[in-house]
């Protein structure tokens, strides 16, 4: 099932189905309709991936790592052709949309809704699935350090006129 189409230049294919665990998590773990009273999910082995995925880390650790990454570059080979198109306006500054909680909710709610209903994840057996998931995690997961700032969730929906 190689439905993930990565870019060969100019020839990206649309994959009909989400294929990777990370993609599916991004879609169905905190998006879609939910009925508060009836969410019953155990997130054993999944938490770190999803929580970290939601955090754009701004911490000393991250800065030091970025600095290291830049200092590793051989600056004599820097190639100007890699510039991105010059664009000015900041698109992502839309404030996170706040909603009051109804019993039936939509996509814009926080993942904490799911976590709060995860009341007994301690007694799950660590089966084969967890090990598979371990391998699927992004290579570089970073926890926020104590002085880290959690970025606000930058998501917004815009309707075309």
């Amino acid at each position: 099932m190689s439905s993930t189409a990565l870019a060969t230049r100019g020839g990206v294919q649309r994959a009909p189905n989400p294929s990777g665990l990370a993609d599916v998590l991004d879609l169905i773990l905190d998006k879609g309709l939910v009925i508060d009273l009836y969410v019953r999910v155990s997130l054993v082995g999944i938490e770190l991936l999803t929580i970290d995925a939601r955090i754009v880390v701004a911490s000393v650790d991250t800065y030091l790592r970025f600095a290291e990454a830049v200092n590793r570059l051989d600056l004599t080979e820097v190639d100007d052709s890699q510039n991105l198109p010059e664009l000015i306006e900041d698109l992502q500054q839309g404030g996170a949309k706040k909603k009051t909680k109804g019993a039936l909710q939509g996509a814009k709610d926080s993942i904490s809704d799911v976590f709060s209903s995860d009341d007994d994840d301690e007694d799950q057996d660590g089966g084969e699935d967890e090990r598979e998931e371990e391998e699927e995690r992004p290579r570089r997961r970073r926890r926020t350090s104590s002085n880290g700032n959690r970025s606000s969730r930058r998501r917004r929906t815009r309707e075309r006129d």
Partner: protein
Amino acid sequence: MDGGLYVYGVVRAGESMPPPRAGIEGRPVSVIERPPLAALVSDAPAGPVKASRKNLMAHSDVLQGVVPERTVLPMRFGVVMPDEDAVSDELLRGHEEELVAQLDTFEGLVELDLKIVCPEDVLMRAIVAERPDIAELSMELRGRSPDATYYERIQLGELVAQATAGKRDELAKLVVGRLEPLSLRTDIGDPTHEEMLLNVAFLVERARVEAFDDAVRSLEGELAPGMQLKYVGPLPPYRFVEMGEEAAWA
């Protein structure tokens, strides 16, 4: 059965259904109808539903099996209701008006998701190429002891982080600017990992999906080398479903 019913999504009643795929824990999926609505369900295991790879993929697969032919409102992973009456009365009847309104809203529309991923070294090169101040500071720090340059390295990293955020915004502007005219709504999400520069969803008319494909391909040619596009769909409108705020649970 004592585990209750796991709910995948809501569709209109009475339309022909593609043969359902196996659901979570390999259980068969069936349809509970309460016209004008119907819910896709399967027996749930006792206890919490494990967010295992298999179950997560099964939830997605069940909905993907329906989406080519039907408008479906996707539930979030892990919704379990006690029994058929609860699904029928509390979900389908109790929220009939909103659910019907949502189905009307999304009739004939699908979600297409686009992500742009860029390996860290490629990104760093692009940033350094555009920001002489960053290149200069980096050169100054090389060969000096890490302890002596601690604060300067933090400063350098902070500049890089800002530049990365700038890249994300530029890309969002480029991509959304190009594709928005072909879509009805756009949803810019958070990157799900550090090498992701853009995570955006579009709500698109089924009839325009091919035109959208063409636009995505032409956009791809304009991305900096090393950037990869991931393009998935048609999906149910995961990132666009939203119920009214008056939907208080009775």
